[in-house]
């Protein structure tokens, strides 16, 4: 599918996935193709979102779910505006954390040096947080977490009114 055929209205795609890392390479391929073909994000951002989705799903599978469970991934593309990705788990892992606990761990890890962290702890605190404009973690009714990330195509930080002043440079994303 080329970009001329893509819809101009928001498109929602839901994928339910068994809680097994075996399937993640397929989800990464899908994410890359979705960003390339259905959004105006650059190639760099296509790869970045591949990482964001992989990290969110791995967290949901490993920390939020028991074996033989499922997670739900929702992609919401809004052409020319943004992409939103939500990953939901059922909290069936006996050691599943609440939204408050997840955010506390993430904020602690953000302040640590690279070599102070163990093998884990970089996914949400570095990759997901730094490569998205909005990150929300919520407790789901009935158990589990809902993690939603949004990346705006036109970062509001870099939007400014056009003027002819040659001493001002306008940065575009």
């Amino acid at each position, binding site marked *: 599918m080329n970009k001329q055929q893509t819809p101009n209205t928001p498109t929602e795609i839901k994928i339910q996935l068994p809680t097994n*890392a*075996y399937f*993640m*390479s397929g989800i*990464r391929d899908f994410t890359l193709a979705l960003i390339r073909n259905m959004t105006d994000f650059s190639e*760099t951002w296509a*790869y*970045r979102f*591949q*990482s964001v989705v*992989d*990290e969110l799903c*791995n967290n949901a*599978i*490993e920390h939020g779910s028991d074996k033989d469970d499922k997670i739900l991934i929702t992609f919401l593309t809004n052409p020319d505006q943004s992409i939103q990705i939500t990953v939901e788990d059922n909290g069936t892992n006996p050691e599943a954390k609440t939204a408050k606990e997840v955010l506390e761990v993430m904020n602690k890890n953000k302040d640590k*040096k*690279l*070599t102070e*962290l*163990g*093998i*884990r*702890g*970089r*996914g949400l605190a*570095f*990759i997901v947080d*730094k*490569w998205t404009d909005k990150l929300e973690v919520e407790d789901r009714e009935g158990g589990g977490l809902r993690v939603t990330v949004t990346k705006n195509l036109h970062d509001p930080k870099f939007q400014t009114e056009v003027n002819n002043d040659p001493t001002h440079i306008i940065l575009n994303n």
Partner: protein
Amino acid sequence: MADITYTISDLISVQSDKKIKLITLEGQLDESNVDAFAPKVYEVIEALPENSSLIIDFEKVSYLNSKSIGYISDFFTQLQAKNSKLILAKPAANIRDIFNVVGLDQVISITQTIEEAKSLS
């Protein structure tokens, strides 16, 4: 499931007394395979004498996740404890981007060529 293959070889050092190991990777490192792969690297590190270098060639790696970064950071710590170096060579732009976002480039040497990596060894 993601595939990762690797080869381990010896490189000749500019300083003749230094041992340099090269691990060349091909494929993707993710949650499905990184825990099985990492012990192979620990074995290489364990066998290296003091004052050595380990170069990991990432040219043919198309993806790696945050846990892989965690292992790389730990390889670095283990090598440092043996007065040895870890150098990451030839990462593609998307892999370099991941190294940068987690701050790996601030701690570990990253080179564009194997020759450059050898010169840092």
